[in-house]
């Protein structure tokens, strides 16, 4: 029992130690540019925690990160690397935007779900080629998904600038689609939160995709832990040979999980596009897919860990804005901090996993070594 408690403490301590290590490295950088790290961190905490607009901004930023992290985690769970969330969400968000401004006169209960479903389907469709080539031809999905990212970015740029650009914006530097119908906008959370007495700044775009992301993570956790399909997924990840011998079709399991990953990726951009902007423009937020990789690694690919991990990265992101504005420290310091934390955390998890395995092995050896003594005792 005491061993189990000790291992549990170690596993919980690993992320904290990684954050501390990242903070130490970032302190070195902050010192090097002639600022006081403690002051910068203090400012970041105050900026993030004492302002209600900061708190709302953190939850808003965590919304797309939750979907991105879950999308990446789903693929990692079957030993596949979907680095293509970046492209999948761009395609998904643009397809949803097409529905949102292109179809007119639909009631909201049909229009919004339709736009969301088209986004989901487009994200999954963009994941189809890499997984098909992986399973059929052995093409490494890391490289093919990254190539699909470049292609997605070019495709969306072309469709936006040359085909679907809002004609009323011609001649201006703005490159964006026409405005969406109100029936395709995601409702804000503010009215509901005010009912329960939580005050949200009136300009906050915090919307229903936040609870949707949480529910999706809970659903994925249930699926993986409690259903037959989830059992197959875990078997494929732990020991493909044993899974195959047990009659599990590995390629099929991987195929479905990868498409699910792409489908969730299709949701990443919608909180911003349908919940906030109300149009799709050329400055549409980019890089969320790569942040999703950080979220998944931080969460150890556990859907239940995705929401806290997304909140942590959103916290750092908001803090980066604060320190940039109020202490003149470039926000890139926080980007470096994030990457160092992720590196430290994967090393930390690896060390803990190895230690746990060694402990279990030792315990098992002790049990095996103990048994002959017992039988000898009985025989004598």
């Amino acid at each position, binding site marked *: 029992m005491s061993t189990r408690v000790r291992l549990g403490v170690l596993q919980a301590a690993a992320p904290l130690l990684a954050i501390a290590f990242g903070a130490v490295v970032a302190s070195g950088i902050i010192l090097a540019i002639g600022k006081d790290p403690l002051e910068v961190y203090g400012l970041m905490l105050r900026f993030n925690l004492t302002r209600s607009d900061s708190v709302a901004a953190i939850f808003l930023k965590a919304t797309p990160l939750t979907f991105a992290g879950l999308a990446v985690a789903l693929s990692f769970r079957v030993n596949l690397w979907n680095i293509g969330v970046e492209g999948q969400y761009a395609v998904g968000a643009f397809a949803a935007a097409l529905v949102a401004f292109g179809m007119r006169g639909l009631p909201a209960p049909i229009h919004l779900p339709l736009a969301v479903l088209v986004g989901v389907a487009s994200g999954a469709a963009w994941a189809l080629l890499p997984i098909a080539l992986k399973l059929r031809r052995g093409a490494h999905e890391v490289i093919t998904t990254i190539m699909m990212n470049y292609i997605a970015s070019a495709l969306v740029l072309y469709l936006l600038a040359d085909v679907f650009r809002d004609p009323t914006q011609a001649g201006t530097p703005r490159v964006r689609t026409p405005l969406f119908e109100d029936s395709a906008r995601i409702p804000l959370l503010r009215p509901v939160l005010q009912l329960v007495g939580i005050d949200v700044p009136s300009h906050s775009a915090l919307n229903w995709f936040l609870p949707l992301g949480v529910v999706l993570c809970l659903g994925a956790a249930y699926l993986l832990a409690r259903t037959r399909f989830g059992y197959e997924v875990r078997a494929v990840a732990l020991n493909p040979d044993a899974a195959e011998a047990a009659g599990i079709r590995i390629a099929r399991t991987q195929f479905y999980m990868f498409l699910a990953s792409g489908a969730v990726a299709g949701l990443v951009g919608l909180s911003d596009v349908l919940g906030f902007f109300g149009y799709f423009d050329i400055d549409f937020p980019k890089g969320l897919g790569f942040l999703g990789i950080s979220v998944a690694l931080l969460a150890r690919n556990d859907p239940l860990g995705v929401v806290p991990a997304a909140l942590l990265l959103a916290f750092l992101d908001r803090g980066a804005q604060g320190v940039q504005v109020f202490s003149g420290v*470039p926000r*890139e310091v926080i980007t*470096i901090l994030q990457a160092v934390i992720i590196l430290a955390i994967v090393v930390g998890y690896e060390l803990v996993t190895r230690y746990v395995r060694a402990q279990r092995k030792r315990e098992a050896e002790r049990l095996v070594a103990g048994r002959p003594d017992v039988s000898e005792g009985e025989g004598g």
Partner: protein
Amino acid sequence: MELLSALANMALLASAVRLTVPILLTALGAVYSERGGVVNIGLEGIMIMGTFFGASVTHLVATALPVPGAEAGATHAIAPVVGMLAAMVAGVLFSLVHAVVAVTFRVNQIISGVVLNMLAVGLARFLNILFFGVATQSPGISGFEPWSVPVLRDVPALAPIATGISPVIPLALILLGLGHWVLVRTVFGLRLRAVGEHPLAADTLGINVAAMRYAGVLISGALAGLAGGYLSIEQGRGYLEGMTQGRGFIALAAMIFGNWWPLGALGASALFGYFDALSLRVVHTRIPYQFITVLPHIATIFVLAGFMRRAVPPAADGIPYTKEEA
């Protein structure tokens, strides 16, 4: 006919040769790393470091050493040399992170490489702000004095390809031949390949598996750094954020297409270099330019899908080696 001349004129071929070099150097690096059994997805990030340090160090040296008696803007000939070396050193140091995380700590090599790429983007932006006050580009620089081939340069038809040659181009070819010789003929190369095929057997014979894998990764860092330096010093005449354009990943595809051999990587790199050059040239057609810019990326997917050849990776490629559990 017009299309044919657009696809195969001398200027295009010259541009293809220039654009083959960064992919070739990085693919050669990838061969060293993966022959030793370490997948290096971080090559893109290492290239980014090379582009930044190559350009910025060249700029710093050029401003620190003004050429006496020359007009303003002239650059000391030593500046690009120091810049290239700095790019290589940066590549080695950055790849050291990958070696420590993936070889010593045995973290999944894909994860380590992916995080390295994210780190490179943030680091390059931060350092650029620190040095030049803006996030995304360095001041313009001049590179090496270009070479030309003595007799061929006088033939008008061959002039585009026989003049304006960067000295890095012959250097890349020398490094390529050297790479083939090292991997096939030397003790080091044999040992490197042994730890990539069967680390346990190599270990049993007294080869230091970790040391060989470190060597493979660090060499790949030096070559990818050099490739980055070439991009920013010789091609771009300055650092620009995102100028690697996924070439680190394309180089991995070139390495796979070349069946994990240096000479094979040459053919594949030339193919990608050609598409790269095409994507820069064929702007004046009816095809939207956005589609033309992704030609190299589409070609990469085709190549990886093995529509041309089946590839055989080293047997232990990507698998961390654990002594006590083997």
